[in-house]
């Protein structure tokens, strides 16, 4: 259809070539000039805040930049130091655990809830709204509330555990439970946004497939595994890719809820980069670490794109 429109336009241009004004009005030149003008702010932004910094931070990662003095070239020193630093490995492990546990778990929960919600149930919109609310709230406020809910002595969660006969947990106060506790907050906040995407995807699965399977005597669970899971996979893939990229940048919840503790148990790589850059004024070192993180995240993304053929169905 667009090709068609293009063709008729060139025709009218030839007809009106007599006057310069009309040529301008009809021509592709006008379109191109406007095209460039309208993207200009975005290009300036791209250069100043995206592409430019991505390039210059690569340079900075080889220097001892600290804002106050002009950066001095250090060669690979930042990188070698990084790979000898214990805190770096700890932070990396925290972030990786966070990403590879919290993201899949929340995807499973939100897919199940979406499938349940996708039936013709009363109050569908109300449920969807309620599930979304946590994602709207400031993570600072959210973290502070959860700190109270997690209180070992007076917190509601331990009270609930006791109620169902389970032992109390130390939650944020122990090295073992602190990270799972932070992950629970993150999962709680991510269900709503994921469900919006899943629900939109579920609408696209033809009902006839389920009807045909029902005639063949398939159970609901079989339908879920054989029809829903494969056909929703493009949405799952999208959420997995963006979710993992996001998870490796997680920092706010630990910053507020635990300060990265106890004993670095919730100290994420983004937290470490932030502190190196702005609390310890080691900006070159922070840039090196950010680059290592970027390479890891990029590798994970590329691997996902490479293996998607095996499990993602596109019609």
């Amino acid at each position: 259809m667009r090709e068609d429109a293009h063709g008729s336009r060139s025709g009218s241009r030839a007809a009106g070539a007599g006057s310069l004004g009309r040529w301008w009005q009809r021509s592709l030149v006008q379109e191109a000039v406007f095209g460039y003008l309208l993207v200009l702010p975005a290009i300036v932004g791209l250069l100043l805040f995206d592409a430019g910094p991505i390039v210059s931070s690569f340079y900075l990662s080889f220097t001892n930049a600290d804002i106050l003095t002009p950066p001095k070239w250090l060669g690979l020193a930042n990188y070698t130091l990084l790979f000898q630093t214990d805190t770096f490995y700890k932070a990396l492990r925290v972030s990786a655990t966070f990403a590879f546990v919290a993201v899949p778990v929340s995807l499973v929960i939100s897919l199940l809830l979406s499938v349940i919600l996708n039936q013709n149930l009363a109050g569908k919109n109300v449920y969807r709204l309620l599930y979304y609310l946590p994602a709207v709230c400031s993570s600072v406020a959210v973290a502070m509330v959860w700190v109270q809910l997690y209180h070992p002595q007076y917190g509601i969660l331990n009270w609930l555990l006791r109620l169902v006969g389970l032992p109390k947990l130390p939650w944020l106060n122990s090295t073992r439970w602190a990270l799972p506790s932070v992950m629970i907050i993150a999962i709680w906040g991510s269900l709503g946004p994921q469900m919006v995407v899943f629900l939109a995807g579920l609408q696209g699965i033809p009902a006839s497939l389920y009807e045909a399977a029902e005639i063949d005597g398939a159970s609901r669970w079989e339908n879920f595994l054989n029809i829903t899971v494969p056909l929703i996979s493009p949405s799952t893939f999208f959420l997995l890719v963006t979710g993992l990229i996001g998870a490796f940048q997680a920092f706010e919840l630990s910053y507020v809820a635990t300060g990265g503790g106890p004993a670095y148990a919730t100290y994420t790589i983004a937290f470490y980069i932030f502190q190196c850059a702005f609390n310890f004024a080691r900006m070159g070192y922070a840039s090196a670490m950010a680059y290592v993180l970027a390479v890891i995240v990029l590798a994970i993304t590329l691997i996902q794109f490479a293996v998607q053929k095996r499990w993602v169905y596109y019609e």
Partner: protein
Amino acid sequence: MGATRASIFKSRRLNERIVHTLSHLLLLLGAVTTTLPLFWMVSASLMQDWELAVYPPRWIPERLMWENYGRVFTVMPFARFALNSVKLAVLSTVGTLLSCSLAAYSFARLRFPGRDKIFLVLLATMMIPGAVRLVPVYIIFTRLGWVDTHLPLFVPSFLGGAYGIFLIRQFYLTLPQELMDAAKIDGCNPFSTYWRIVLPLGGPVHATLGLFACMGSWNSLMGPLIYLNSTELFTLPIGLTYFRGHQWAKVDWTGLMAGCVITVLPILALFVLTQRYFVRGIVLTGLKV
């Protein structure tokens, strides 16, 4: 024969009803889980201090301590924080909508050399974690003398952003070409086509991006943490952390919960009011993938 069919029908109806009831129970459990912490936050913000330190925990305050809210405003310049947050959220939202929709229209609907390459570069930057940008951007703002002002927190939003441009472009691509051609025949130049035809049609999609931008600015912690030093410039989230860090001996938790409610309530209200458009916007952009 007829009887068995009727009984199959009946058992299926029964089965259906059981599934529906179970579904509602599960969904209800989920909804309680997502909203309970928020309910508790409001409840705790109206409690007396000692009520937070009793076992079994309390759900409802003994009497409503509205003075918790008053205390937040007297101990801290919380009204100032709120005002700063509103200012930054409005500016960021306007900036994001303006710059992203203009660029999206250009990428989706106008032809110019290099268009697709530029767009690809823009998309590629989305895959690079934000941490990489942190230091150089900070150096730029330091050179400009913008540290400890609000400028670094809203000026970038007037210069596009890959995510927003992508989101809106997806929608602009779906508009029929005939519409653009008709506008052109009526003498519209590319900008007036955008202004008169494209912009009014994008309601739900703009609402979606606007809401994202507003939420992003309102809830942002890292930006204010990096760029703001003076208390009178603080926004609500950083004000909250300051409020807690400010008290050495004993944290005023009920006051803090009141602060949390003040931080969360406006954006929650905005979301509830606009969520209709928001959900439609997500579907329209084909974010369904």
